[in-house]
């Protein structure tokens, strides 16, 4: 059924694009929630993501030395505990003192937090890239055979299936939280109007804590998924993700979690598909310019529709 082009398009561009999109989506959720509820652009978000990946890897290594082999997704929840703790400490020490001050102060504080976390990670784990060489990941044989029989063979390693499944679970849980629980509704209320939330008697500090918890879990998952995908740990990975994650949050509409998910998928797809040979046989854009795609989308969006696709807050 599929010709060679479609086979290549789906397996080598579309699926990797969606994988990358899932990672951006999870990162962008935290950014958009922080922006909606605390009203500032958190530059430290990428570093939180990166530190989550390092902590997960450390848990796996330590237990591995004791003979217990953990799947990253099993180590992930434990790493989340550390990361959420880190987020809450950052809030207490660096963000809370600026809660009533002008936004620029807290933004600069987050910039400082970004540098502190990255340096701390470099001190603890070293500045060099850590690569896991496990050979080429084998595609999931079952999926390959079943889809192959239908004439639409999908080549997808298990890790990508895990990333999809993990993202879907987290997004469903998030939507349950925001729409069905008291705390989640209060998060939406504070995002809607902090002043009204205050005079409604909502405990805004509790809501802020909940925001860091949700953002921390999503960021850790994003970091771990990224490492599962690329098989490398780097102290600069968080910073590299920051631009596409912000682009995703802006595309979806600042303060809109579903918008962030959608924006993340679009940015991930756009980056991968920009390297597809749409015209002739050469990639449309050299893969080296991938990050430029996210930047271009962000700039265009800020000019033509600053409130984003889902009508978020305009700058």
């Amino acid at each position, binding site marked *: 059924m599929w010709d060679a082009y479609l086979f290549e398009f789906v397996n080598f561009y579309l699926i990797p694009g969606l994988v990358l999109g899932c990672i951006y989506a999870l990162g962008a959720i935290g950014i958009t929630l922080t922006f909606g509820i605390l009203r500032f652009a958190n530059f430290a978000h990428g570093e939180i993501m990166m530190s989550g990946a390092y902590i997960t890897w450390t848990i796996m290594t330590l237990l591995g030395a004791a003979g217990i082999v953990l799947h990253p997704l099993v180590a992930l929840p434990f790493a989340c505990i550390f990361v959420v703790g880190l987020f809450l400490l950052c809030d207490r020490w660096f963000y809370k003192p600026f809660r009533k001050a002008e936004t620029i102060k807290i933004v600069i504080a987050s910039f400082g937090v970004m540098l502190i976390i990255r340096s701390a990670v470099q001190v603890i784990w070293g500045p060099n890239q850590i690569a896991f060489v496990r050979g080429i990941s084998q595609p999931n044989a079952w999926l390959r055979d079943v889809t192959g029989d239908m004439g639409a063979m999908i080549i997808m390693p298990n890790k990508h299936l895990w990333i999809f499944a993990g993202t879907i679970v987290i997004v469903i849980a998030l939507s349950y939280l925001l729409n069905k629980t*008291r705390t989640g509704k209060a998060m939406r209320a504070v995002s*809607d109007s902090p002043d009204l939330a205050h*005079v409604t008697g909502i405990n805004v500090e509790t809501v802020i804590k909940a925001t860091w918890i949700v953002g921390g879990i999503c960021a850790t998952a994003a970091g771990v998924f990224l490492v599962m995908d690329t098989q490398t740990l780097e102290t600069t990975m968080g910073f590299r993700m920051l631009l596409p994650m912000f682009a995703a949050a802006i595309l979806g509409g600042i303060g809109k979690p579903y918008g962030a998910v959608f924006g993340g998928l679009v940015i991930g797809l756009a980056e991968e598909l920009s390297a597809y040979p749409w015209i002739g046989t050469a990639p449309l854009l050299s893969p080296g310019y991938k990050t430029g795609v996210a930047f271009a989308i962000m700039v265009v969006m800020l000019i033509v529709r600053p409130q984003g696709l889902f009508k978020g807050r305009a700058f």
Partner: protein
Amino acid sequence: MTDAQTGAVLSLNNLKAGYGQTEILHDLSLHVNPNEIVAVIGPNGAGKSTAMKSVLGLLNIREGSVVLNGEEITDTPAQKVIEKGISYVPQTNNVFVNLSVQENLEMGAWTRPRGVEARIAEMYDLFPDLAEKRHQAAGSLSGGQRQMVAMAKALMVDAKILLLDEPTAGLSPKYRGEIFSTIQKIKHTGVPILIVEQNAKQALGVSDRGYVLVDGANRHTGTGEGLANDPEIARMFLGGGH
């Protein structure tokens, strides 16, 4: 200093208060007795909204006191004030536009999480229009319906007093009438009301007493009827299109 009004549900006594360094209320005293509707009227910028915010602990109070049922609550943070049963509807931005009507009411109940369902049902009885809109985003409703959501949301607490800041501003005469009659219904449930209004004549018409506020201090005080018929006040506020 006059003493706090004995027997009043809420009293503001010789308040000097403002935002940061700027003093807006220079010497304000007013009180609300049980089963009363009390109107506060006055020109734009007189400090009417500021007076209400001072009760919610949103201001720097330099002198004077706020007393609720004999208990001093000066400078108490908003959350605590609401827990004590003060139900406040701000002048603008008084509903969560992205939340449904039902969710707005649930948020109103934040400080009293027990018996929420029953209280919501009571609110739908009081504001029948809202029942059928319960799953609609508050931001998608008309101005009058939004004002009703705001009032219902505020009343979700065990209200000892309701503070309404210009509930009929910008509404059509139909909704204005509806709001004023709802206010009287609320009064009959035993909740006294302090209301700031631009539609002075109508407000004084439903009020037991009224205060005229000018430049952050009381200018006139009297019964609703007395103020409404006072020629000087009529010239000042009631002459216009209200």
